[in-house]
């Protein structure tokens, strides 16, 4: 606390916000999937990793660069998600949440295992796109242009998703379908297809986050496994299924974690879980959750 300069503090705040972008994007996907499908998607980290790998393969096999990957990778990962939903998740839709959790957890282990077998654990290199290379001096820190882009882009995607689900006709229909599928079906809406596409969309967000992370981290099989536990804590703190909650909590916890890394790095891996425990004791439904 003492001898800490304001510039250093500002820098840590900004760094926290950058990490928060990933938490927000990932927890947003989880929240969408849980809110609309009631599936606790443990495969989210593995799909995030797949997004990064798809970006790598697009570049190295098809010559498609970062910007193309930003569009294509989420679609590929989303399509894979649709396949998962159609072939497996659908079969357990009416069972207890635990089954979905176990199924997706198993899927995550299999996907990670396969990637690990063929690509090893140290991963593959992926460069920052030429347009976003370099850093600018903000006076208190060097801000890499790419990180600035990540924050701005994530906020835009999060806001667009929130808007689509909470404020549009389509979103209203989606929310209605989860409340009462039979009634919505009576209006002539193809509810199963809507659910499949929603899962594909949530998973596509994970793929998108994976592409964003590829130039920062190594593209490696465990990149998602390291993140997913924290992201689940974010979702729990924000309130399961709350779209806005997951976004705000994602950014906020990134900042809290960043500050912890500075003041007391030993706790940086646990601080999120301490907050989770506290929130669960005081507000069991999460900060933004509605009590069932």
């Amino acid at each position: 606390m003492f001898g800490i300069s304001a510039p250093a503090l500002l820098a840590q705040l900004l760094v926290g916000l950058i990490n928060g972008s990933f938490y927000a994007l990932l927890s947003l996907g989880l929240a969408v999937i849980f809110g609309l499908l009631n599936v606790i998607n443990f495969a989210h980290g593995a799909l995030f990793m797949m997004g990064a790998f798809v970006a790598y393969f697009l570049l190295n096999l098809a010559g498609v660069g970062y910007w193309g990957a930003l569009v294509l990778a989420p679609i590929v990962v989303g399509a894979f998600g649709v396949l998962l939903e159609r072939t497996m998740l659908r079969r357990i839709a009416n069972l207890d949440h635990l089954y979905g959790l176990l199924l997706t957890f198993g899927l995550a282990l299999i996907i990670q295992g396969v990637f690990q077998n063929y690509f090893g654990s140290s991963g593959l290199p992926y460069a920052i796109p030429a347009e976003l290379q370099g850093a600018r001096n903000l006076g208190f820190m060097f801000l890499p242009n790419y990180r600035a882009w990540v924050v701005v882009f994530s906020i835009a995607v999060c806001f667009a998703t929130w808007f689509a689900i909470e404020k549009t006709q389509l979103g209203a229909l989606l929310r209605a379908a989860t409340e009462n599928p039979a009634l919505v079906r009576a209006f002539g809406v193809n509810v199963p297809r809507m659910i499949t596409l929603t899962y594909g969309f949530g998973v596509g967000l994970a793929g998108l986050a994976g592409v964003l992370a590829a130039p920062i981290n190594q593209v490696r099989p465990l990149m998602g496994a390291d993140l997913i536990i924290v992201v689940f804590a974010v979702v729990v703190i924000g309130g399961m299924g709350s779209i806005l909650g997951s976004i705000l909590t994602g950014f906020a916890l990134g900042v809290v974690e960043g500050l912890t890394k500075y003041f007391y790095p030993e706790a940086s891996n646990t601080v999120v879980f301490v907050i989770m425990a506290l929130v669960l004791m005081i507000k069991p439904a999460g900060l933004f959750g509605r009590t069932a």
Partner: protein
Amino acid sequence: MKISVSMLALTAALGLAGAARADDKNVKLGVLTDMAGLYADAGGKGSVVAAQMAVEDSGLAAKGWKIDIVSADHQNKPDVGVNISRQWADQDKVDGIFDVLTSSVALAVGGVAKDKNLVYMNSGAAASDLTNSACSPNLVHWTYDTYMLANGTGKAVTKAGGDSWFFVTADYAFGQALERDTTAVVVANGGKVLGDARHPLSSSDFSSYLLQAQASKAKVIGLANAGADTTNSIKQASEFGVTAGGQKLAALLLFASDVHALGLKVAQGLQFTVSFYWDANDGTRAFAKRFSDRMANKQMPTMVQAGVYASVNHYLKTLAAMGGNPHDGAKVVARMKEIPTEDTLFGKGSIEPNGRVVHPAYLYQVKTPAESKGDWDIAKLVATIPADEAFTPLAQSTCAMLKK
């Protein structure tokens, strides 16, 4: 007098029993490593492959020996490592434990090996404590240690003008040992250490620590971490303009697999210290080719994996010289220390009384993309550190066994 006679008889009987068991030709090796975590490419499956190759190359199967290899994943957790080694000793009757990278696990397993009188040949962990404060009659430490790394990369960087350091350190036994040993070398060579930032093992974001390192204005940022922690630190350091800002990165432990993963564009110019590089000579190249053919990801062997090969090789050579497996860890290790080490990967060497295997070490520099002629053509030799300078001099070792 009577007592001493019966004692004599007992000793003779025991000696006979020992002799009767000495032609036992069953051996069971356990490879304990990180199978799926951040160090899995340095050791992992490759360590098991290396052990299998050493067993095949020994030719002992044709002479009536039965050699089995078991392997397990310690997940970089000391408690998991200890439980597996106990189970190996008690139920599976494993004779020797190999690899055991991750220093925290290595130190914990050392206790089990001593309690259960196993052979413990560590070729994966770095903490120099293994042959100092934690030395034991059951341990042989192959390949490298933090003293060697500090005296390789640390010394070279300091002597090249990098006289002020800031450490980014993995906060566990290994990182602390590496920071400690490097600090000693930096200070001895007229440099000073300005501070450190310690991160938990297996982190993915290093920007907080790198910002602190940048703010310290130190000339050198010493990365006292390993595996994916190091590759992510290096990648993010280049993103934050650390080198562009005039600071120099010193990756104190860098495996060939890390350099390959980073790509030469990011890693070029970095110096690293190893005791084995796959492209050093015809012998290492031949080994590397056979090794790579057996790996699903076609990787070249790291020094940890080469160390597993060499240590299994020496272990089996010793057993063959003893004419059988006495299933007595301390006894085998004592005999091992009498035989000079020699193999195609590390050349000639010897095992010191404290268990440290001494052989030359090499300072390599990562090639530029233009210099590289192939996917794994990643480094060029800068300097050779002779065996007697690469490791802690015996006179300085704090190993308790040396004082008897």
